[in-house]
């Protein structure tokens, strides 16, 4: 369904460009939630914007690689061209519900706008559909809320509205970029379960971006871990958690309070994520890696596999259970 192959995203000016995402590949199937995990600056948001066709041209652009939806190449297409050409199957919800809605337009108008574009319906039909969408995302008094302005809603409600807008685009794949970070803990859970439900109900693929492995373990079917603009490890959620290959994945998991352990392990990864442009040669994680060897600091990194769908890019994977 959605395939991302060897995606390279560059930033800067053509004379001084810099790869901020390099050689990223993954795939999302219907009804499947892919968790994309990494620290801030790891390139996960840029990847999602690239998939969405929303990179801020001309400052950031796709240099090579392909994004395919049902076999059609949509790499270079911004959303309105995708709609025009019938490729409008990807929609997105963003991290900040407070600023992601236009403050001067009513909720209804903002949903109807999407409805009109994707359904071709107008007037009363669009309005009815907008109300259905609000009901679908469990907003009480949907009819009333259509006339509300964003500032009149709470953060959780706004994120639901964002989801309604995304659904209005009748997506095959929904990208959710840290949709719960800005919300209260209780509201977070409601929104997460809503996303999971909708994924199942509409048989959508979901690309769920987060830095929170805990959320991933609850929600995702498969996980991709990014570090320094590259994929570090991909695999089914159970395999990855049971048997992390990349030291970075291991480190991330170390950051997660482990409910199984007798005492709270709370280890952090020393050092900081590399800034774009300051990336070291060879493995980008090398400066922070406990297992670093001289070979890590130069040349290409080999892929290692620990199962049919579980792979990592590392000279010295944590686990020896390789296939």
């Amino acid at each position: 369904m959605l395939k991302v192959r060897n995606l390279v995203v560059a930033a800067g000016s053509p004379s001084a460009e810099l790869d901020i995402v390099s050689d990223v590949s993954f795939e999302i199937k219907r009804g499947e939630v892919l968790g994309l995990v990494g620290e801030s600056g790891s390139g996960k948001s840029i990847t999602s914007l690239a998939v969405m066709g929303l990179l801020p041209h001309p400052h950031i652009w796709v240099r090579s690689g392909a994004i395919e939806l049902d076999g059609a190449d949509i790499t270079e297409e911004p959303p309105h061209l995708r709609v025009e050409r019938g490729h409008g199957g990807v929609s997105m919800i963003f991290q900040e519900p407070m600023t992601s809605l236009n403050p001067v337009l009513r909720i209804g108008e903002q949903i109807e706008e999407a409805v009109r574009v994707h359904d071709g319906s107008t007037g009363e039909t669009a309005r009815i559909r907008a109300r259905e969408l609000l009901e679908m995302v469990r907003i009480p008094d949907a009819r009333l809320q259509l006339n509300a302005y964003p500032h009149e809603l709470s953060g959780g409600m706004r994120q639901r509205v964002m989801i309604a807008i995304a659904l209005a685009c009748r997506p095959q794949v929904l990208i959710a970029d840290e949709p719960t970070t800005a919300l209260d803990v209780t509201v977070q859970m409601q929104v997460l379960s809503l996303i999971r439900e909708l994924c199942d109900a509409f048989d959508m693929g979901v690309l769920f971006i987060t830095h929170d492995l805990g959320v991933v373990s609850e929600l995702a079917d498969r996980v991709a871990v990014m570090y320094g603009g590259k994929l570090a490890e991909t695999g089914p959620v159970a395999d990855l958690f049971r048997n992390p290959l990349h030291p970075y994945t291991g480190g991330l998991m170390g950051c997660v309070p482990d409910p199984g352990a007798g005492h709270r392990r709370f280890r952090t990864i020393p050092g900081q994520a590399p800034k774009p442009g300051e990336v070291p040669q060879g493995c980008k994680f090398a400066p922070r890696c406990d297992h670093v060897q001289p070979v890590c600091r130069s040349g290409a990194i080999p892929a290692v596999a620990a199962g049919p769908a579980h792979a990592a890019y590392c000279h010295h994977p944590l686990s020896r259970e390789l296939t």
Partner: protein
Amino acid sequence: MLAYVLKRTGAAIATLVAASIVIFIFIHLIPGDPIYVMLGDEATPEQVEALRIRLGYDQPIYVQYFYWAGNVLRGDLGTSIFFQEPVTLIIRDGAETSLLLATVTMVWIVALGVPVGVLAAIRQGTWIDQGLSGIAMLLASIPTFWVGLYLILIFAANLGWLPSSGYPSIFEEGGLSNLRYLLLPSLTLAAPNAALILRLTRASMLDVAKEDYVRTARSKGIRPYRVVLRHILRNALLAVVSAFGFTFAALISEAVVTETVFALPGIGRMVVQSILRRDYPVIQGVILVIVCLYLVINLLVDISYRYLDPRVDLE
């Protein structure tokens, strides 16, 4: 809403009273004497004194102020020393020119500044943007009278397409065609102001374009022009609208120089000439009216936000 308007009006009136006192004191600090100007070269001291008493200029200044303020409350701004005519009539005559000039100028400013600012913003970084922004900055750097003089030289004196100066009322012979007298002056006055609005529109557009909700709008797949018009421009204009208000109010008094170059009978030039003639009642009256206009426009701008921006709550 009503409570808000009342509260703001109250504040405006307080400002107006403070301003009127300042005006009054200022004007009476001006050296020179209207009585000498009135009576001319060879008046005797007795004549001067008699007229001074008749006009009440022998009274202490606070007595003069209360007398004047009392009359203002009754809608009487006094009588021009120079014209021997009610100040309200003089202002009414000048106001037509000034308001029309400001309105026509405002049309230019909005018609040129906003679309070109939008164009520069959506072509940000290209030579179109740099060219337009450069021209705007140049226009904002040219003294208005310099532009005016050259416009007269080219379009009135050399080409003879437009009248060089003056403005007969549109209620007189010629009717609306008299508006052509305001064409060159309004362009002169519009140039630097349109440049400011252009720059403001562009900056505001660029700021708004970075907002998350614009990205949301794009993600819906709506067409770019719609994103620009409905989502970016609409929000960007919020910042520009208050500048419209300030600009319009400023145009009334800024027009002094333009009115001088084009010999327009506006209230700006009226003030300057009245200062030179020491025609106190006219100066006081006109400045009071201009301050009043400024406050009213300010209030209207704030109220208009109630309709433009739902986040603004006036209560």
